[in-house]
């Protein structure tokens, strides 16, 4: 195998070869893939992120784009061609208003507990609504808040970003505006630090989920 020659100094050929491999892997997968998942297929010490950025650039004007979803990448049809592809989504039941509001509150206020969601909506949230959002794969249990009762904290998933065409939570519509208006906080805090939605690892005030919690929500992980 002549791979040894190519690995150290990335020749243009090696870069092309790696781009082809990335193309093939990302095309083949319906789900976004992370640089970490892609790297093993390339040579040693290859700058995967750099190659992905290059590939995204190459596809920028095409009918199919390479898009980023959190730390993962996927090919998706270009947004401007959606008129061609818009499908009659007869089987897609639209989300109920309650579910939609709950999803939105979790997205903008995450990590959020159920009672925090209820506080914003001013009404009790049925267990069914959260279950439905978790089943859709858009909401996940993150951990448990370090407060009395140790309530479960909820957050959004990568599938949420993918479904709504967001690169990251920073792309949530109107985020800056909401932050400026102080509407992302739980309480009325005119001069306190306004939190931003956060879907990273557990925060200081969050504990990991109990083993019992995790059972049955593997799909979402």
């Amino acid at each position, binding site marked *: 195998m002549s791979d040894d020659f190519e690995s150290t100094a990335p020749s243009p050929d090696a870069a092309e070869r790696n781009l082809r491999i990335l193309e093939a892997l990302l095309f083949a997968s319906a789900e976004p893939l992370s640089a970490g998942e892609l790297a093993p297929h390339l040579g040693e010490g290859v700058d995967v992120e750099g190659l992905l950025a290059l590939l995204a650039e190459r596809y920028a004007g095409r009918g199919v784009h390479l898009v980023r979803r959190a730390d993962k990448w996927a090919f998706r049809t270009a947004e401007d061609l959606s008129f061609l592809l818009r499908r009659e989504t007869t089987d897609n039941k639209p989300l109920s208003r309650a579910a939609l509001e709950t999803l939105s509150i979790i997205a903008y206020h995450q990590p959020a507990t159920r009672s925090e969601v209820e506080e914003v909506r001013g009404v009790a949230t049925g267990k069914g609504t959260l279950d439905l959002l978790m089943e859709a794969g858009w909401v996940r249990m993150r951990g448990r808040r370090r407060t009395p009762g140790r309530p479960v904290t909820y957050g959004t998933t990568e599938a949420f970003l993918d479904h709504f065409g967001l690169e990251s939570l920073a792309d949530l519509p109107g985020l800056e*505006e909401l932050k400026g208006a102080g509407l992302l906080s739980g309480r009325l805090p005119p001069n306190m630090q306004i939190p931003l939605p956060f879907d990273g690892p557990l925060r200081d005030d969050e504990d990991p989920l109990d083993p019992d919690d995790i059972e049955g929500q593997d799909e979402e992980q």
Partner: protein
Amino acid sequence: MTPDSSTEWFEAPPPPDDEVMYVDVDGYEGPLDLLLDLARRQKVDLAQISVLALAEQYLSFIETVREKRIEIAADYLVMAAWLAYLKSRLMVPQAASDDEPTGEMMAALLQFRLKRLEAMRRTAMQLMNRPLLGQRMFARGAPEPITIHRKALWEASLFDLLRAYATQRERGVPNDYTPRERNVWSLQEAREILNRLIGDNMDWVPLDRYLAEYLATPAQRATAMASTFASSLELVRQGQVELRQSLAFGPLLVRRRKSDGPQTGT
């Protein structure tokens, strides 16, 4: 924060004439929802609403509902109590020593909650208007699945191999086991032989001599000696022979006993 883009949300209970309130709690998702609807009837930015007017409208709405004996969730009554308190705080001047929140603070909190709920409704709408995957943006229609080839990596050590071979070779060795034929004199046999040998000999004769013929092979020696000795003791007990040994490890002499009884033997 202009509420123009989210009109659909508020079409659910169609805004009726301000004076004639629809009495329909089913159209609302909780008291905050109802309050937001009432606030929107003031047709001003939520920041500009009169909280006092809002509280009054809510309270009169609840009053109407109760007059008509319509079942209403406790939430609505809790909110009504809170708004009644808010109203009193707003109308009665604040006492200096009062450490309860001021009416203005309570009004600001209500405004905040209404604005936040409205904002969340608007963002929910905006999310749904994004190019949704599977509706306006598409993933690869025919993803090519990764096929997994299970390959067994067999494990065996050289030691396992050698032991397997060795065990088999051992197993293969023709293991013809022929048990050694051991000539054991039974006591019965020994007694018969002894009786025959001694016959009617009344002289002292060493036991070995009688057995000389049999003791020729070392294999037989031990058993012959042991069995005949045991048998001779038996014969002595029966009074048929006499034994004599003059010193330890000396020759064992045997002779027929003179007896009156019938003699056994062949």
